[in-house]
């Protein structure tokens, strides 16, 4: 299914600027943001910006990939825990897939996530790259 431009546009604060939400009562941060805290139903929250670095908590290597990422196959996917404890999911870029390890340090980098052929809108977002500096 193609991505209609409004769907991408609505997610800019999250995908471009890593904006998350932190709920008052539980102190938990969720990315992407949500309106209700699933742990206690709290709706009082503030906007927070996620830190740029973290560690891989689990990963896989996609070897049979959807056509949008055919040129990048095989590629890594990981759940990363950032330095503030927030966990998020994303692709691993610029890394030999055989070198991905649980516990690996990564940093967030702005990348092109999807594009629709030669004519559609370009959808940008974040990926994880090995933290080498």
């Amino acid at each position, binding site marked *: 299914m193609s991505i209609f431009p409004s769907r991408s546009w609505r997610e800019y604060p999250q995908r471009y600027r890593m904006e998350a939400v932190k709920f008052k009562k539980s102190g938990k941060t969720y990315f992407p943001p949500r309106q209700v805290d699933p742990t206690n139903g709290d709706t009082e929250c503030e906007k927070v910006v996620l830190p740029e670095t973290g560690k891989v908590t689990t990963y896989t290597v996609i070897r049979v990939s959807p056509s949008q990422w055919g*040129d990048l196959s095989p590629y890594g996917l990981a759940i990363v825990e950032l330095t503030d404890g927030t966990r998020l999911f994303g692709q691993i870029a610029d890394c030999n897939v055989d070198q991905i390890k649980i516990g690996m340090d990564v940093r967030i*980098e702005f990348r*092109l996530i999807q594009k629709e052929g030669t004519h559609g809108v*370009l959808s*940008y977002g974040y990926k994880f790259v090995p933290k080498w*500096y």
Partner: protein
Amino acid sequence: MAGIVGYGAHLPRHRIKVEEIAKVWGADAPSYKKGLMLREKSVPPPDMDTITLSVEAAKNAFRRAGNIDRSKVGAIYIGSESHPYAVKPSGTVVGEAMGIFNDCHCADFEFACKAGSEAMYVAMSHVKAGEMKYALAIAADTSQGAPSDALEFSAAAGAAAFIMGTEDLIAECLYTHSWMQDMPDFWRREHEFYPQHGGRFTGEEAYFATTRGASEAILKKSGMKPSDFKYAVFHQPNGKFPQRIAFELGFTQEQIDPGWLAPRLGNTYSGASPIGLTGCLDVSKPGDLIFMCSYGSGSGSDAFIWKVTEKINRVRNLAVGTHKLLDENLTYIEYGTYAKFRHKIIKNK
């Protein structure tokens, strides 16, 4: 006095050696390496483009600028010849990603390899005129070289970003000069995937005449001589051209070294001399004078004379250095992966 408040660069991790490309086309690698002084070039993977490179370079520029109020950035200009969209600005994507919106000027710049340096001049002019407190200029490219063409050996990718302002400068801009003519040395028609060029015609009357024109004019305007400068950066479509013009004008290898990146980076088009400038800033000391002259086919050259302040010592290490990006953590690829990354393979729709 206007100048650079923050600067940063970003480069891809992937590289391809001249020998790899030569092998496929039956070309003579040693003569390319010797003749053009090129060893390898950077290759952007499919998820990297002018916009993503610009965002990462801008992040580094903001790191070095310190805690400046982003709402005071009044313009964002990206100069490139590989903007991802033909219609829809790169600047708005980068602006949105950097949190610079809504009260901000924006338009994309195009002038072959000097789109970025022109953006730098215009951004600086805005702040100098008191129109706004800061203006962001980015020079970025992921240009294409046609398969088997000489330019395929050098067309590379990279970005440099500069936040211009009038206070707390890392480098003051003492003089600028721009020289241009209409020169059909290198062009790309709308809807064409690869550019065309005039071969040897791109040398004397194009690159050299234009660069010489701007360089001699700014030296005259400023009353300075080459020996006054610590570093000099020229547009670098290969290693040879900038070296030749530098020596002709009276600069030395030592002066061009920190900004002479083409042999290992390739030609980053709009990014070329701006990235070279970041390489010089990274190693400069307070009081150093840096000479910079870009070149864009078509043609034009933007010359700048920068004076580094003591702020460089405080901020140099707040972001990753250009030479580190150039030399470390590299992945070498072969031609097949390169062709795949650069969309040179015909696929089914």
